[in-house]
């Protein structure tokens, strides 16, 4: 049975190998295109109109799951993966075709037979499975601030937000304080609030955002305010009256 396919894998040798093996097991299959990541899926569909996509799950840039989402039901999809217990379980239950690396000819022959059968029917949408897998593989919202760039002397320091104890506005600048260093950035508290993960970073004062993971204790202070003590740091932070409700009943 003749059919056309596209292979996507970021490792050139593995693309070549899949191609060689497929040529042996399924001589009528025409591999029309190879790609190193999931970018340009649209263009590839337009140009090559393949019946089948072999998609490596872990690819830089646009990975196999994201590519599958774009392809939708416009082509049959076979996932390729080296090792992913979760993914394999999901494939088995979702009756989606997959290939394990390193390849095993017998296993690949089974997949080829199944694919030949399935090509008789139009491709089904595997959206729900892809969503489920994306969840398991730990893709998270990408728009949260995860790094802060701050000038220290002549170099630009990259500080992962997990390391930051608190942000505090200091007239023109914002202080970024970690357990062993301190830097100034220009981004104001207001903008930081919009970009930081709200579960981890709480505003406790007009001028202060604290990383709750680094709080050691919260004490009641004067005039309805509260005082935060931090782990690994001497400074205490004032919680102004408007924000003390955050710490009630804790």
């Amino acid at each position: 049975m003749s059919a056309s396919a596209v292979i996507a894998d970021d490792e050139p040798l593995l693309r070549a190998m899949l191609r060689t093996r497929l040529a042996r097991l399924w001589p009528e299959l025409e591999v029309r295109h190879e790609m190193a990541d999931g970018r340009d899926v649209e263009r590839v569909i337009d140009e090559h109109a393949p019946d089948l996509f072999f998609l490596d799950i872990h690819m830089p840039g646009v990975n196999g799951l994201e590519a599958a989402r774009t392809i939708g039901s416009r082509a049959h999809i076979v996932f390729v993966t080296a090792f992913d217990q979760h993914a394999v379980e999901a494939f088995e239950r979702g009756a989606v075709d997959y290939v394990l690396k390193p390849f095993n000819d017998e296993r690949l022959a089974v997949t080829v037979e199944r694919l030949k059968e399935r090509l008789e029917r139009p491709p089904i949408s595997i959206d729900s499975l892809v969503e489920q897998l994306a969840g398991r593989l730990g893709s998270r919202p990408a728009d949260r601030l995860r790094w802060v760039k701050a000038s220290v002397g002549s170099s630009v320091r990259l500080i992962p937000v997990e390391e930051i104890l608190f942000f505090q506005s200091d007239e023109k600048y914002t202080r970024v304080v970690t357990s062993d260093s301190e830097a100034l950035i220009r981004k104001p508290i207001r903008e930081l609030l919009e970009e930081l993960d709200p579960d981890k970073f709480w505003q406790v004062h007009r001028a202060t955002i604290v990383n709750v993971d680094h709080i050691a204790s919260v004490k009641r202070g004067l005039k309805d305010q509260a005082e935060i003590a931090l782990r690994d740091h001497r400074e205490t932070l004032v919680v102004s009256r408007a924000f003390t409700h955050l710490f009630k009943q804790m």
Partner: protein
Amino acid sequence: MKSYAHLLEGLTVQRVLWVTVICMVATGMVVGFFINTYLDLLLSALCVGYTSMVLFTVAGNVRQGGLPREAIQIMAVVAGSVLGVIVAGLIKGRDISSMLNERLVGVAISMGLGIGFGCVVVAGAILRAKHARDQARIAKAEAERNQLEKNILEARLQLMQAQVEPHFLFNTLANVQHLVETDAASASRMLDSLINYLRAALPQMREGATSLGREVDMARAFLDIHRVRMGSRLEYLIDVPDSLKARAFPPMMLISLVENAIKHGVDPCCECGTITIRAADNEGRLTVSVADTGEGVRPTSGGGGLGLTNIRERLKALYGPRGSLVLEENTPRGVVASIEVPA
């Protein structure tokens, strides 16, 4: 009223009973030296005791400025004794002016006894509070140490898991599988690299520290493998003086940085990238850096954080504030990660 309630915090029934008992005992001890009856003396003693107790409690709760809490509490006891004797005199119906004249000696003796006993009792209370604070501090230090030990254990566990990353192993083997059929010489070289990597990596599950030389060898094997896997996209340069190779360096940190540089630096930017490993002695301190020419860090790009946090925690556990991990922007592009450890 509500806002002053905290001043009497600690004024428990237990404290009142203790003061009562102490007054009774103290009166019993000195009753032989006075012509007064036991009950008459006890009344004075209780007046002095209760007044001092209330002032002492307030002094302990007041938010004071310069003076140490203990000094204020002693002053409270002295003031309490003076006030208590006067109160006792009033209760017994004595004239204040006569107390300050013909009865002055007796009054002074009462006050002196009050102050004396009071100070002994307060000293005991202060010592007990200090002991409790010390205990609390010891318990806290203990908890911190336990947490640290737990962190080290967890880090070690993650280390063991990271080394046998199945994804890396199977992908590498898949490459070898292909090369065996197409280019036997390259297959053999890649197997050599894999063997070198595993040989360097595996024994470290059992060891705490290793030499920089061995970590560099492992990184080299790892980079060789990735160079084959990524085609022509990866170049690397290792600039580590031989004189530094025998220096102790914690295991798996260098490889972790190299992995990050590939995964988050060179790999996503889809062109050719170079990774440079450098080591330098900086007045006895050892600095090891991994630089890439990759796409650098976008403010929102994830990943890497956990591995870096892991390294930071291990450095802290091993060297305290003397070990550090710093990430900086590379020029013209990419990231430099540097680990510094003390001699």
